[in-house]
């Protein structure tokens, strides 16, 4: 019953919204805004001429690269900050200042430093993705319950073992939460970044469709695809939460 409702009610709501959209557009006389059907037609056009796949993979590649770089740096840094108070006290204020700066604000600097190639959007995603992961990881280390650390201390194991079998697995659920947030923000940012420069990606598709002949059917198509891929990426990260070694966090 619950499962049925979980699928059925959003589908019903979306249908209603689509119908409303269609009716409003059909009854108005503004020719610019597309009907849902025109959006579908436009999407099929994009698929047929092969450009859609190109845009999607360009965007995904940028997000993937920026996100990976951020993860590689954020996780060790977050763990280090979490374990060593002096490191935390030194770095945390800087991160707290940098964090609220929207990655969009970095766009001019990114272009100045890195030009209009792939490096700039990858850098922006990196900037967007790294802070949530650092914060989550460090906070995760701080919330490891004392009793576990003391039990580990009691058995007199090596630092490496303490790290591998206690600290890291204890923080892993939080790291995954951080990764999930970061990937979401990264996806948000890549589209924005592609609107400024570049000649590929879903952001470029949207801006280009508007500039080249007010193709609002393609604009909306691009938006919907961005939303769907975002949902998919989040779903992938949620799969990580189901891993056996992190499920303890969500049990009971």
């Amino acid at each position: 019953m619950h499962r049925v409702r979980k699928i059925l009610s959003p589908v019903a709501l979306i249908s209603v919204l689509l119908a409303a959209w269609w009716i409003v557009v059909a009854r108005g006389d503004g020719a610019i805004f597309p009907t849902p059907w025109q959006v579908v037609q436009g999407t099929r056009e994009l698929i047929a001429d092969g450009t859609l796949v190109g845009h999607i993979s360009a965007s995904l590649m940028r997000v993937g690269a920026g996100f990976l770089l951020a993860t590689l740096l954020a996780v060790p840094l977050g763990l280090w900050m979490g374990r060593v108070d002096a490191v935390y006290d030194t770095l945390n204020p800087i991160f707290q200042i940098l964090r609220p700066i929207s990655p969009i604000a970095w766009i001019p600097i990114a272009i100045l430093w890195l030009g209009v190639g792939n490096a700039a959007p990858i850098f922006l995603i990196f900037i967007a993705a790294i802070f949530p992961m650092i914060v989550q990881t460090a906070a995760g280390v701080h919330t490891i319950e004392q009793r576990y650390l003391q039990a580990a201390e009691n058995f007199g194991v090596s630092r490496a073992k303490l790290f591998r079998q206690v600290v890291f697995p204890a923080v892993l659920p939080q790291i995954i939460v951080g990764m999930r947030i970061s990937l979401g923000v990264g996806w948000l940012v890549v589209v924005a970044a592609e609107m400024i420069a570049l000649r590929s990606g879903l952001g470029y598709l949207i801006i280009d469709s508007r500039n080249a002949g007010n193709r609002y059917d393609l604009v909306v198509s691009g938006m919907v695809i961005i939303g769907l891929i975002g949902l998919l990426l989040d779903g992938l990260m949620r799969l990580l939460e189901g891993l056996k070694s992190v499920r303890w966090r969500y049990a009971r």
Partner: protein
Amino acid sequence: MRGEAVGITGRILVRDIKKGFAKDGGRLDVVGGISFAVDDGEIVGIVGPSGCGKSTLIRIIAGFDRPDEGQVLVDDLVQKGPSAKGIVISQQGSVFPWLTVRQNLMFGLNQGSEREKAELADHYTALVGLKGFEKSYPHELSGGMLKRVEIARALVVKPEILYMDEPFSALDALMNLRLRIELLRILEKERHTVVLITHDVEEALHLSDRILVLSPRPTRIQATFEVPFPHPRKLTSPEIQTLKSSILSELGI
């Protein structure tokens, strides 16, 4: 008789321990001067009213906390910090939830190949009656099973001393009794030295060679009782019942 050893020799020597905590700008005296000795292979039970400072005391003895005054000697060395020589079985439990039962038991093993460690771990898993649960995660186990994992994880490293802080208090009466019997069976073979904190007088009578009764905060040793009965003990026997009433009356009941 073991009682003669008090204050003279022993595997563990507790010498005039005092401990307080800062509280609301003032001071809360918790441990008010405690001395006793534990012989090799002896099981000393410590009972006392709730909140009197039992956990504080055992944490100091195990090396997790410093006393304000006095000192603890283990094998003639001043206790400076926790080590694998004495494993604590804590009141809240500390089985790692992110490791399987087998991985938990293997955690403290630093010698041998992975296979040997796994075999040893599985042996102790079976010893506490959890055969078949080696690959289970703690959240897949009941509270009683979890306690057994904790005990097995301590035993598998063959610690010379076990510090047990109300190990069975979260369990129902039946499981409590069952685990006590299992523990006695294991201790019979391995002869660990045990300090057992409990607020269950019957549990103390069942397991201990000697029982220390603590006073309310700031806690001191109020009375000491030898429990000179061989195992298996029949808790309903008149001698044990008499001892039980004496202990209870010390506790003001």
